[in-house]
């Protein structure tokens, strides 16, 4: 299942949802939340799991349910704190495992992603679409050339490098600021 998850497999995701979401949902609702909060939190937890599964070095030492529950619990506590709705008597009936490392890693990654997304926004069009087409949608250079109206693939490639260098500059400028 975790391999399926790492490969972004819809079936694996659906199974995990079906088996675990109800527990998380009732936990969130019991602790001052709305069902929609449960969807948000669960999604975030799935992303943590996804990153873990992708890293390959992940050995689940407890049940998946427990693991997800622990992560959701941390995420929810955090959200409550942020909104000044902290509820000291937060209910914990299920067993939990420590997930501090995951949380830390996840937060760092989130920050990096924000940086990258910010940088992508800043470089403007057509650079943004061009880079997205190549690096995210994995389109080939000839395809990109015709979609963006470049005369040939080499031309598109040159453009892409120009864009990439700009993006890199922006990204690292911010990245080093943060450090």
């Amino acid at each position, binding site marked *: 299942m975790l391999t399926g998850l790492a490969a972004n497999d819809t079936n694996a995701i*659906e199974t995990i949802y079906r088996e675990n979401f109800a527990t998380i949902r009732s936990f969130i609702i019991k602790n001052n939340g709305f069902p929609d909060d449960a969807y948000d939190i669960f999604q975030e937890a799935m992303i943590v799991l996804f990153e873990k599964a992708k890293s390959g070095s992940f050995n689940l030492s407890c049940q998946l349910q427990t693991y997800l529950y622990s992560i959701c619990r941390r995420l929810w506590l955090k959200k409550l704190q942020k909104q000044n709705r902290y509820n000291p008597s937060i209910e914990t009936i299920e067993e939990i495992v420590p997930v501090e490392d995951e949380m830390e890693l996840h937060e760092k990654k989130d920050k990096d*992603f924000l940086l990258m997304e910010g940088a992508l926004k800043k470089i403007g069009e057509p650079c943004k679409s061009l880079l997205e087409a190549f690096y995210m949608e994995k389109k080939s250079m000839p395809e990109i050339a015709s979609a963006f109206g470049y005369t040939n693939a080499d031309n598109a490639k040159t453009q892409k490098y120009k864009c990439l260098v700009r993006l890199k500059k922006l990204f690292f400028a911010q990245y080093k600021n943060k450090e």
Partner: protein
Amino acid sequence: MDENLLLDAIERYRSGQMDEAEKLFFEELRKNNADIDQVVSEHSFFLDQLENLSEQKSFRQNLKGVENKLRGEGVFSENDGQRKSKVVYLWNRYRRTIAVAAAIAGLISFTTATVISKYSENKKAAVITPLVDNKLNQFEHKLNQIEHKLNDATALPVKPKFEANFRATGFLADGSGYIITNAHVVQNAKNIIVENKKGDQFSAQPIYSNTVTDLAILKITDTAFKKVNGLPYTFPKTTAELAEPIFTLGYPREEVVYGEGYLSAKSGYYGDTASYQISISVNPGNSGGPVIDKDGEVIGIISSKETNADGVVFAIKSKNIYTALKEIKKDKDITIKLPTVNSLRDLDRVKQIKKLEDFVFKVKGN
């Protein structure tokens, strides 16, 4: 070394496109030149970031698709849970405020009741117009004819030659060729033709038409039609919220036209609870077009607008589609499968439209 060349080399190295000799040379170069090594690790880190971001994005989209699907199936007994907890929660927090507010609301409703009733008397005179374009003018006919000729010359399937006297919009409910439109669009039509963005025309026949809800479902009967996959939108069973931003695609002209607006009331003409009132600019020809929210869910189908008022448009609620499908299943034993995975969420509007365009059809006939 040229920087572009170096970057190119790094990318090929990472994706395993280098042959052994080149790889060795590259690794050697890295070892011997600290500057290059620096660039390589920096660029690798950067590309990792970019790739991770893209992977996470597609994963997120997949997640939302699954979530929507399960929500649509009502796996988590959405309704009672949501209602109860929300009410209890809000009640506990705002008990006192509610009491005060209720008192004030009582007073206000008392004073405004008279004013409103006065207005509604006038409103009885209002008429609603269906949004089918019956007056396709001469000029468009000519254009059509020319278009037909051109199409006939280039495309293989023989297209029925006929003069349409109405034009409206429809969209796919099922990739195997079921199209949703309005009942008033097709009720008097002898021949119906649907046309996609590319201009391919297919003959179609109504298999369901309900003049009360104004919902009709057509089946593309043309053998030239090939099943299409990946309908990007889903159909919620729940009622959309006031003020939700919405948009539509339709054929008030020969070309597809985009329009956006918002949900202005949860009921339609004369309090009709089967439809919404929306505020959007539409014209004859928009009838049967999908009303889509920002997440790419089809919340309704455009049907009519109030003649005497500007921007008062009515749309049939999407849950009526489910009722229609049940009836079709019962009467004709045809199973229509609505799409369950939404791939429009989190895309910007331009991309959403690009994905949508192929599934919105022009409905013509005479």
